[in-house]
């Protein structure tokens, strides 16, 4: 800035420089300093949009989680109800797991065709289907029991080794009847029913009695 005695007419006088610099200094003295960083204008809207998206995602995840929890609770309640409804004595026991192809009953049924077959027109196929349903039901109950007992509960007892498969057993009963051992057949039938209460038996006591007469 010109500080010379002889003032150039096309340069501002030094007094004017001092006045203006003084004004500029005074203007910023005491004024609150502006923030050093100025966020760009789009930062606010972008931040809001990101917040909204994250919030929606969290709410959605929480909703899905609670729905899943409700489903699990409903299933557990259903299982508990089924377990509670079934009396201890009538619980279905699991049949031994088959290794041969299903259904092997056909041979036994064909071997001993009975009069009751017309009275009970249930086919072998349908019988097998029913047996499968019964096994599935008994399995679900066993599973429910194991859930109730906790993870350290003992596995459900396997079917006794001396008890044959349902179809084989029925075949043996038929065989006994055929040989005339009706009392034994009745006893076996009774045991069979205790063992497989859901298994449809084509020859009940009445038919047996009818045949015996």
């Amino acid at each position, binding site marked *: 800035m010109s500080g010379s005695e002889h003032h150039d007419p096309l340069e501002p006088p030094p007094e*004017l420089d001092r006045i203006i610099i003084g004004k500029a200094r005074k203007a910023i003295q005491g004024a609150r300093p502006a923030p050093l960083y100025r966020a760009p204008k789009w930062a606010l809207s972008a931040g809001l949009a990101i917040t909204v998206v994250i919030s929606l995602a969290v709410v959605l995840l929480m909703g899905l989680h609670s729905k899943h929890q409700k489903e699990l609770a409903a299933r557990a309640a259903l299982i508990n109800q089924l377990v509670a409804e079934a009396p201890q004595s009538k619980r279905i026991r699991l049949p031994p797991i088959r290794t041969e192809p299903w259904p092997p009953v056909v041979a036994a049924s064909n071997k001993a065709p009975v009069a009751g077959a017309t009275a009970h027109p249930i086919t072998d196929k349908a019988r097998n289907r029913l047996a499968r349903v019964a096994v599935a039901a008994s399995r679900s109950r066993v599973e429910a029991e194991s859930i109730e007992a906790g993870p350290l509960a003992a596995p459900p007892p396997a079917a006794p080794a001396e008890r044959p498969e349902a179809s084989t057993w029925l075949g043996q009963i038929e065989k006994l009847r055929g040989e005339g051992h009706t009392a034994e057949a009745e006893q076996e039938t009774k045991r069979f029913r205790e063992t497989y209460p859901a298994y449809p038996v084509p020859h009940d006591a009445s038919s047996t009695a009818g045949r015996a007469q």
Partner: protein
Amino acid sequence: MDLEDDGELMLRYARGDMRAFEVLYERHRGGLYRYLSRHTRNPEAANDLFQEVWSKVIASRDRYEPRAKFQTFLYRIAHNCFVDYCRRASVRAEVSGDGEEDWQTSLPAPDDDQPDTRAERAQVLARYKAALTALPSEQRDVFLLYEESGLTLEEIAVITAVGPETAKSRLRYAVSKLRQALGAAHAALEPMVKVIPERGR
């Protein structure tokens, strides 16, 4: 720091950096003062306007946004201040009368400052001054803005609130009239009157 952009300096001043303002002021004080001084041809009025312009710059520091060049911002304020000054004081007549002696010394002296050269230069300056005074105020405004601020014609058009073609036309007329008035002597003034060579496109 000297290479720093004017807009950035202004922003720094707004954040409280006084040194930034000093650099900014040092860069533009001369050109702005000459613009106002040649416009008003009255040192007192030029001083008042100069102070008024810088006061407005200081006052608007918080609102300043570097969307355009700082010079455009500064000279728009200066232009408006001068227009207001003309309206306030009806100074057209006054402007044409005063400041005679200032014009004798207003332009830089050449190196060979001999008595005969000095006399010749004084004559040329007198003719230049007369020619500049004789220009219509709009043409003189564009001419002085172009001469002192270093702005482009587009920026001058923005400052004077006319179209670029109008600003260009005004500058062309001003240069043409000055050439006519100075005649062959305009070559002597060339280092002093920058616009006379074909700059105004």
